[in-house]
C-alpha cells in the first residue's frame, strides 16, 4: 500500500556551539488518505521540527518526505498548518485572518465568492459573532478556533496541527477537541495531530505514534498503536471503554519506557 503522506528516514539536526545536535534521527511514517494520526512526544522531542519539515518550512538533512508521491521541497497549499501559538496576525480581524487563507486557496474565485468562503469557515468554528474582532479581543480558546479555521480555509490535502490546544485550559480544550472531531468526521480530511496529551490523542486519532529517544541522540517515531474505538467518540464516556483503557495503558507504558531509556 502506497501511503498518502510518507516520511522515510527523515533526519534533522540543528547546529549549535557544541557541534550539531540531532533532533530527529530517522523518522518513518505512513499516513493513509482520510486518516487522523496523532504523534505524541515530550517537550523537546522534536514535535515542532517535524511539523516544520512536513510543512516545507525547513529542509530535512536526510530522508524523504512525500505527499501523494510528490517530494516535499517547499511550503505548499496542499499541506496546511495550525501553528502552536495560533500565530494570528494581530492587525487583522478574525474574518480577515481567515480570508487571507481563503484567498490563497481559491485565488481563481471572485472576491465575493472568496469572502463567502471565509465566512463559511468562521461559521464552522462558531465565531460568526466575533468575525470583526481582532485577536487581542478574543479568549485563548477563540483564538485557537480562528487558527483552526484558517488552517481549514487553505483546504489542504493534509492538515498539520502542532499542539493546537496545549495552551488552553482543560474545559476549553475538551470543547475544541470535540469540535475538531466533529469537523474531521464531516469532511474526513487527512490530519496529523501533534500533541503531548494522551487523552487528546485517544479521543481523536485512528492511530497514535510516539516520539522516542533514538540510540545515537535525537528522536525517532515508534510503531503506531491503532485506536479501535468506534466513532463518534464522546470524551465523557471514553473512560469506561476497555479499548480506551488498553490504548492509554500501552501509550503510558511506552512513554515511561522511553523516559527511562532517555534518563538511563
Amino acid at each position: 500500500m502506497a501511503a498518502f503522506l510518507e516520511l522515510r528516514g527523515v533526519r534533522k539536526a540543528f547546529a549549535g556551539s557544541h557541534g550539531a545536535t540531532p533532533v530527529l534521527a530517522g523518522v518513518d511514517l505512513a499516513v493513509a488518505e482520510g486518516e487522523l494520526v496523532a504523534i505524541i512526544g515530550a517537550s523537546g522531542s522534536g514535535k515542532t521540527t517535524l511539523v516544520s519539515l512536513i510543512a516545507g518550512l525547513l529542509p530535512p538533512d536526510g530522508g524523504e518526505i512525500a505527499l501523494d508521491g510528490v517530494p516535499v521541497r517547499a511550503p505548499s497549499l496542499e499541506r496546511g498548518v495550525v501553528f502552536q501559538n495560533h500565530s494570528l496576525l494581530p492587525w487583522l480581524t478574525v474574518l480577515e485572518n481567515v480570508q487571507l487563507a481563503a484567498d490563497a486557496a481559491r485565488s481563481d474565485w471572485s472576491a465575493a465568492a472568496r469572502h463567502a468562503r471565509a465566512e463559511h469557515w468562521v461559521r464552522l468554528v462558531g465565531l460568526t459573532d466575533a468575525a470583526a474582532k481582532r485577536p487581542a479581543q478574543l479568549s485563548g480558546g477563540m483564538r485557537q478556533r480562528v487558527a483552526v479555521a484558517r488552517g481549514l480555509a487553505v483546504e489542504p490535502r493534509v492538515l498539520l496541527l502542532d499542539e493546537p490546544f496545549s495552551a488552553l485550559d482543560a474545559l476549553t480544550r475538551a470543547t475544541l477537541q470535540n469540535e475538531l472531531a466533529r469537523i474531521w468526521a464531516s469532511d474526513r480530511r487527512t490530519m496529523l495531530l501533534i500533541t503531548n496529551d494522551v487523552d487528546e490523542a485517544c479521543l481523536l486519532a485512528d492511530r497514535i505514534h510516539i516520539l522516542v529517544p533514538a540510540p545515537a541522540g535525537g528522536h525517532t517515531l515508534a510503531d503506531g498503536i491503532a485506536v479501535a474505538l468506534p466513532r463518534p467518540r464522546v470524551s465523557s464516556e471514553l473512560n469506561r471503554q476497555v479499548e480506551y483503557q488498553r490504548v492509554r495503558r500501552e501509550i503510558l507504558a511506552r512513554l515511561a519506557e522511553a523516559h527511562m531509556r532517555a534518563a538511563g
Partner: protein
Amino acid sequence: MTRRSSLSTLLLPFAGIATVLAVWTVLSRHVAPDLPSPWRTWKESEPYVLRPFFKDGEMNQGIGRFALLSLWRVTKGFSLAIAIGTPLGFLLGLSPTFRRAFEPVIQVMRPISPLAWLPLGLIIFQRSEPAALFTIALCAMWPTVVNTAVGVRSINVEYLNVGRVLRLSPMTMLRKIVIPATLPYVFTGYRLSLGLAWLVIVASEMLTGAPGIGGFLWQEYNSLVYSHILLSIVTIGLIGFALDRLMGMVETRVRGL
C-alpha cells in the same frame, strides 16, 4: 499618598522652571551683563508674543508668524525625509544585498552635521530654500531609515511562516504582513525624525537667513537685541516639545492597533 503625588506632579515642574529662571537671573546679574534678565526678556518680547501674527517686514514679524514659516519649512523637509527614508528602510530590512551595499554609507552619512550639508545644498541648488529642505531631509531621515530596517528585521518569524505556508505573493506578504508588523517601528522613527528636522531647521535658517524662528534669532543677534534670542529659544523649545507630544500620540495610536 495619591494627594501627595498629584500635588508633586503639579508643583515639581514649576519648581524646575523656577530653578531655571533663578539660574538665568543670577547669570544675567553677576556673570554675563549682556544677557537680559527674564523680566527684561519678557518686556522686550511682549509685542511679538501678544501680537504673534503682525507683519511689518520680511524680518520683523510676530513670533507666531515666524513659527509658522519654520513649521511649514519643517513640514516640507520632514515629508521629504520620510518619503525617502521609509522605502530606504524597508529595502535595508528586506534585502541583505542592499544592506551590505549601503549600510556602511549610511553609517558614515548619519553623523554628519546639518552645518556641513547646507553649503553642499547651496552649491547643488544655488538657492537657499531648496538647500534648506535638502539639509533637513538629509539629516532627519536616518532615524526613519534605521528604525524601519530594524522593524523589518525583527518581524516575528511566526508571522512570516504564516505567509510562507499560505504561499502569499511578495506583494501580499508586504501589504498584509511586513508593513503592518513594521508600522510601530516606523512611527517611532518618524517621531525621532521630526525631532531632528526641528533641530536642523534652526541651523539652516541661521545660515541661509531665511525668515523663520532661526532666521529671526540670528538677525536679532546681529542687531544686538539679545532678549529676542531668548524669546526664540523658548519658542523653539516649546514647539519642539509640542511636536514630540503630537507624534507621540500618533505613535501610541498606531501601536495600539
